[in-house]
Structures are given as C-alpha cells and as structure tokens.
C-alpha cells in the first residue's frame, strides 16, 4: 500500500515503514537504546530526506521509549533519581552540542563530522562492550573462579556531593552522573540520536549501575532528550512528518513490547554482547561508506546551505 508523506514529499510503502518501526522498536525494547542510530540511516535508505529522517526519527524514539519505560516500570527497572540527575547534565551537554553543530555547519563539514563521530564513538563503545561482556560470559561458564564485584571502588567514589540512588543501590557523588549526562547530551545533539547506546555502557561501566535498572533509566531520560529534539525540529525547520512518525510508531511500540519481553529472558552478558555487535555493525557500515569509493561522487540537495 503506497502512502504519500505530506512533509517528506515522497511516496512510500506503508507496510515497509511499519516493519522498519517494528524492527527498531524490538531492538529498542530489548537493549534500552532509543534506536535513533538505526532508524535515521534506514530512513535515508528508503529515500526520506535527511532532515525529515532525523526529526521524525526523534519523534518515533519518544514513542518507543515511553512504551519501553512502562514495560520496565512494572519490573522496577527505572531509577528515577538517577534519571533526573542524568537529564540535568543532558540538557547542559545538549545546549553545547547544538552550538558546536552550528559551528561545524558553518564550516561546511557537518556530514563528515557526524559520520566520523558515529564511527569513532560507536566503534569504541562497541569494541569495549564486546570485549568486556565476552570475558564475563566466559567467566560465568567456568565455575570455581571468583565472582567479580558489580563495581570497583575508585577515585570516582571519593568525590563530594554524595547522593543515594536507591533503585541502583548506589551511594555516589552526583558529579559522575552529571558528567555522563552532559557527555551523552552533547553527542546526542551532534549525532541526532537519543544517546542510549552511549548511555547504557556509561551507566554500566562508569557509574557501576546494575544492568537491571540501566535499560529503564536510559529509556526514561531518552524520552525527554528526544521530545526536546522533536519540538525544536518542528519549530525551526518543520521537518517532523506526522504521518511517517505515526507509521513508525505503530510498528515501533509493538516491537518494543516484544523486545523487552525477549530481553528479560536473556542473561545480562548475552544482552550486552548482542548490543555491542549491533553497535559495531552500524559503526562498520558507516566506516565502509567513508572508505569505499562511492558509485556517485556528486550529491544534490535542494535549497542553499544556511
């Protein structure tokens, strides 16, 4: 069934979009990532203009995150205190990110900048997660070896302004979560994504949060970051396509519910290995685009650069 999208101004197959939303929603519910880093490139691929893809992708992520958080909420997987602290940092980082993004746009290399940050950050995080989770998976198979503590005390725990994060079972300074939030907000603004794929490993490895609450808390703060992005895009460039978003959402919310149920059956290490493989795959795909000679060297964009 072909459907003409009013803002994107392209005709697409409605079932294809529903399917795309479903797949991304499934991954989103399973791993606690918003899925922005998947949905945006996929929309480019089916011919939706980049600006519309980024803005509408953000809107879709709001829906799948709401759905995912509600699913996590029932199993007490959301640390609201931590969520709010991360969010405060996130808005600060996001404001800085928007400013840097504008600087890069003026320099005319924003595409490259975005692609390189995808390759570098996705590649690094994916590799780190893969290595760590593989090691802990192997360890868990071998009985008799000492069980590692969930987190190691380091200089991070000597910082002032300590706060109790009950759901996470942590008593740490607010400075690290604020900094993590700011870093994620900064990257999210630059890369046009919710930032879950950075947030999840940062919460596990930097803050030492238990995997059980990581996904819900990550989704919780992604709702706000992407809601903010959606409204900003709607206001400044009118690039949110409601019809496209609705189709993606319908597929996505169903996918997210299934995904979070599948996720509950998997072990934390398996979940992390799968997420790291996914992140590495996306990173590799973008790296190939940068390295392989493109079939068409020229590209055409309507309108002039700002």
């Amino acid at each position: 069934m072909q459907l003409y999208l009013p803002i994107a101004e392209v005709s697409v197959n409605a079932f294809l979009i529903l399917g795309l939303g479903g797949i991304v929603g499934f991954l989103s519910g399973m791993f606690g990532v918003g899925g922005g880093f998947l949905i945006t490139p996929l929309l480019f691929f089916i011919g939706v203009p980049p600006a519309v893809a980024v803005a509408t992708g953000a809107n879709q992520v709001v829906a799948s995150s709401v759905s995912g958080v509600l699913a996590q909420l029932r199993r007490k997987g959301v640390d609201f205190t931590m969520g709010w602290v991360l969010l405060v940092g996130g808005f600060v980082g996001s404001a800085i990110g928007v400013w840097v993004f504008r600087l890069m746009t003026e320099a005319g290399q924003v595409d490259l900048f975005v692609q390189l940050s995808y390759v570098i950050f996705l590649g690094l995080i994916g590799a780190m997660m893969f290595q760590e989770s593989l090691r802990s998976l192997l360890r868990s198979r071998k009985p008799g070896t000492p069980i590692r503590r969930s987190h190691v005390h380091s200089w991070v725990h000597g910082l002032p302004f300590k706060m109790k994060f009950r759901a996470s079972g942590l008593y740490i300074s607010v400075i690290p979560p604020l900094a993590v939030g700011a870093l994620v907000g900064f990257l999210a603004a630059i890369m046009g994504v919710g930032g879950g794929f950075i947030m999840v490993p940062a919460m596990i490895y930097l803050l030492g949060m238990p995997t059980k609450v990581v996904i819900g808390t990550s989704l919780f703060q992604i709702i706000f970051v992407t809601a903010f992005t959606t409204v900003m895009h709607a206001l400044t460039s009118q690039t949110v396509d409601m019809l496209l978003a609705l189709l993606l959402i319908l597929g996505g919310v169903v996918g997210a519910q299934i995904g979070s149920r599948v996720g509950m059956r998997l072990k934390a290490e398996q979940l992390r290995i799968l997420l790291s493989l996914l992140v590495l795959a996306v990173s590799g795909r973008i790296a190939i685009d940068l390295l392989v000679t493109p079939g068409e060297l020229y590209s055409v964009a309507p309108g002039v650069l700002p």
Partner: protein
Amino acid sequence: MIGARVLRALALTLAVGFGVPAAGQEQIVAGMSQNRVSITADFDGSEILIYGAVKRDAPAPQDAGQLEVIVTVEGPATPVTVRRKDRVAGIWLNNAQVRVDSAPSFYAVATTGPLRHILSDTENLRHAITIERVIRAIGIASEADKAGEFILALLRVRTNEGRYRILEGKVELSEDTLFRTDIVLPANLTEGEYKVRLFLLRDRKVVASQERVIGVRKEGLERFIFNMAHEQPLIYGLLSLVLAALAGWGASAMFRLIRV
C-alpha cells in the same frame, strides 16, 4: 480511449469552429486531460495527456520543412546545492560544492523526433527548451574547478531519480495537424504550478508556442498536516509528542491485557 475521443472532438471543433486565424500562420490549440493534480494520501504518481491541433488558415506550406512538436512540463524550481566527494587522507568527504540558482524539481521534454534534428541551438537558447537551458547557474565557475561537471552531475542524478526525462519521439503527430503525448508525473511530486509549454517547429525553428499550467496541490489529510506543520509549528510539535506518548502507553497497556 479518452485520447482518441478527445482527438475526434478536437478535429470536429477545428473543422467547424475556426474561421479567422492570422494569415499565413500556424497556431496551437491545446488541451490537457486535467489541469490540476491532487496529492492525497494514496497518491502514487499521475499521468497527464496533453493534446492539441495545429490551426492554420491556409494549407500547410509546401516548401517549408517537416512539422515537429515539442512539449515540455516544468515543475517549480528551487536553488540546489551540488556537492562532490573527494578522497582526502583515505576518507571520502564532501570537498567541493556549487550552488545552482534555480533548477526545476521536475522537467520532461517530449518530442516528435530527436532533439538535435528538430531544434537548433539558437532557438533552444531563446526558448529555453532543453533541461540544460532551463537550469540557471550563473557565476558557478568561480565556486569550484570544472564547475560544468557539477551541472552534468545534477542532470545525471535527477535523471536517475526520474525527475528529469527526455522523451524523444513520444509525441504522436498525425496528418501534420493533431498531436498528443502522455507525461507521467512521478509519486515524489513537489507542490506548485507545473508549466506546460508546447512548441511547433519547422526547419529547426519555433514557429508557434503556447503555455498552460497544471496546479499540483496537496489535498485532504496531506493538506491539513502540511498546513499545521507550517502555521502552528509549536502545537504541531507538541501534538506529535502527545501522539507518540499515547501510542507508547496504548501498546504497553494492550500488551498487559493480552498477557493477563
């Protein structure tokens, strides 16, 4: 066939109706199967029949060359940026760009024969018939090396997208009087006024021309969403969020019902 019926009706009109055309000249009487296209939610492209007849007061001149017809359809023009990727330090990145002042979002040229046989360069320049002549790119030479290649790339990319079409030999001309052609408008159509131009040619020169307009507009739901996005952006943005949140909650609630 609609086309055949229209042609018959036209022939009849011509036989009865026209008594006093300008002396010794040939003129175009043209019509279209529709002069407005509505983009609705299920819009999947549209085919427009453009037909016409040559009106003359005297018999067709014997010494002049063969009669030829060119029909062009031009969508609304916008400025475009054409970028070229180069390999810098092993990475392909946008390294050069050219801003084209105005390029149509859609352009189709249908003719009765090969363009270079029926149209001279001077006439092409004067009437801006081929796509190369329609694109306005003044002063691009200063923006990049080999700026001409950017224009060729623009033509190539948009031809591959089906936005630019050259339909040589796709105008049917019968008895040097009646002509018709079908132009397919693609599904990814931009809103606006589509200019239809018809040219009569002899000896590679334009002897008569005419212009018509097809209005392409979004209708219904498409119109409503587009208008709200542009006129009430804040409300539109917030509404998108509410829809997203409701859908998220709805799916969650529904799945809980199924499980319990």
